[in-house]
């Protein structure tokens, strides 16, 4: 019989330019997660999934999950493995743990994800990015670092739908302001619209604050079957209600559209239908704002607004506190930063807190939440719906 699955706790290391190794940060994230669940000990965890994309490239470390288990004092008996889907590695780990618990293979699983991206020489991480698309066909064209691709996406969206540079900047102003809610994020500084619009170009029309930074960091959550969740925590239970993960192309030659993300629509529809909810039921969402244009397209293709109206959606405050759906309430990638494997887990932590009612800045009465990751050159999309009601 299928079981209900709850997210019962989470925590993260400080994110940013860290004087710390990956294993240091996995320890910090694990400790912060255990601190969130006083009734549970590391000995109660029966499965561990570690999400990390660049572990071999920036740490020279394969076979990562047993290493993290050893450092966190976890002795898994049902699963102990790493999962990789670049920027969506973390939410992939949550989906896999959800399936294992739902089906009865495991009861209490930690998912921890993170990256050490700042290495002694700056060129290395940028060079390694050439392997993140299709290395032989896109990477060899100098595509890997995402700004050129997302610049084209922004230009096309602006031309097709009239989206403006001001609307792009409004996403970063909102998310930098929301970032003040997460003391462990990379940035703790709000910006003005003028600062965003006057910042130097990265790849026009994208400017400095339109792009998420390079980040060191880790995060961790624990999922449990409902029965164990009730045993280990007195906090309100938050369920995973539905999930979807889709890809329709990898190499740029096979991309159906630059401005409508088909894989996102598929993943979103899967998650909504399994959860039995509609886009209008979502009270709070963490979407993958690797660039400001990304959040604008995501609010369209997740069904929060009509196609082409993503710019207006942020301009009219509909994605802010008090709007239709508060998006990136802890600052998103633009403010918290983006240690690839850590991001989907950070998103899950914020949604869990919002639905429990103990977020730093609360969306009043939130009962249903959503997380979304994109990965590669928008080549795969991952959506999870969480809720207080199952």
């Amino acid at each position, binding site marked *: 019989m299928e079981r209900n699955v709850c997210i019962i706790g989470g925590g993260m290391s400080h994110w940013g330019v860290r004087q710390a190794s990956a294993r240091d940060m996995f320890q910090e994230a694990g400790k912060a997660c255990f601190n969130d669940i006083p009734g549970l000990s590391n000995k109660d965890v029966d499965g561990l999934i570690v999400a990390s994309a660049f572990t071999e*490239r920036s740490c020279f470390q394969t076979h990562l999950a047993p290493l993290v288990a050893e450092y966190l004092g976890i002795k898994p008996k049902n699963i102990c493995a790493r999962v990789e889907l670049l920027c969506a590695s973390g939410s992939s780990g949550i989906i896999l743990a959800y399936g294992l618990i739902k089906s009865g293979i495991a009861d209490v699983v930690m998912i921890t994800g993170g990256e050490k991206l700042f290495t002694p020489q700056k*060129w290395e991480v*940028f*060079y390694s*990015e*050439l392997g993140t698309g*299709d*290395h*032989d*066909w*896109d*990477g*060899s*064209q*100098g*595509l*890997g*670092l995402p*700004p*050129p*691709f997302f*610049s*084209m996406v922004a*230009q*096309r969206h602006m031309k097709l739908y009239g989206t403006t540079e001001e609307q792009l900047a409004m996403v970063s102003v909102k998310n930098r302001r929301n970032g003040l809610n997460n003391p462990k994020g990379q940035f703790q500084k709000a910006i003005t619209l003028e600062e965003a619009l006057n910042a*130097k*170009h*990265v*790849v*026009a029309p994208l400017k400095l604050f339109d792009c998420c930074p390079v980040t060191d960091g880790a995060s961790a959550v624990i999922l449990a079957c409902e029965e164990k969740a009730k045993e280990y925590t007195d906090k309100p239970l938050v369920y995973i209600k539905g999930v979807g993960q889709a890809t329709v192309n990898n*190499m*740029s*030659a*096979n*991309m159906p559209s*630059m401005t409508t993300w088909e894989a996102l629509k598929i993943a979103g529809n899967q998650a909504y239908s399994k959860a039995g909810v509609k886009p209008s039921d979502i009270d709070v969402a963490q979407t993958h704002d690797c660039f400001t244009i990304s959040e604008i397209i995501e609010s369209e293709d997740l069904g929060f607004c009509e196609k082409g109206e993503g710019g207006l959606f942020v301009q009219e405050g509909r994605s802010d506190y008090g709007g239709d759906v508060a998006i990136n309430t802890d600052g998103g990638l633009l403010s918290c930063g983006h240690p690839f494997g850590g991001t989907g887990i950070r998103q899950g932590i914020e949604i869990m807190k919002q639905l429990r009612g103990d977020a730093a800045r609360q969306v009043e009465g939130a009962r249903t939440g959503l997380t979304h990751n994109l990965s590669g*050159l928008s080549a795969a999309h991952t959506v999870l719906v969480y809720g207080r009601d199952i």
Partner: protein
Amino acid sequence: MEGISILNGKYAVSMDMYPLQDKNYNMVYKFYDNLKEGRFTTTKCTDCGARSFPPRIICPECLSENMEWVDLPSEGTVLVVAEQEAGVPLGFQAPLIHAHVDLGGELTYLGRVQNCKAGELKEGDKVKLVVIPIEPVPADGKKGAVIQHERVFFVFEKVK
């Protein structure tokens, strides 16, 4: 003293931004052989007719192994341009120009445009594919010999 100097002069495939093209390392080496002759090609399934890019050994539509090599257009039209002036990856010069190019309605992809100044390339411009030499791969031969596997790659240039 011991350390990373052991790597001096070594080739590591994990640090090579270009593909291994020699027939010892892949089964679509004919793409690169054709490219050396100035032909931009890909595979087409002789059973279902589906044409794939990148080239394949098995048709992703019908899973047939019966593939033939066909020529693709080598001139195209620019749909959108991205110009990167700062922070380009090691191995590329600024400005790093990319374009989403439509090759005669048969194929679109994101390609690098060489010998192009910032501001020079616009939507609607014509570009053509050119073949450029790439450093060879030094592979282990017999009895300590080093075999150099020659390589080429393809980039766009603006048609002036």
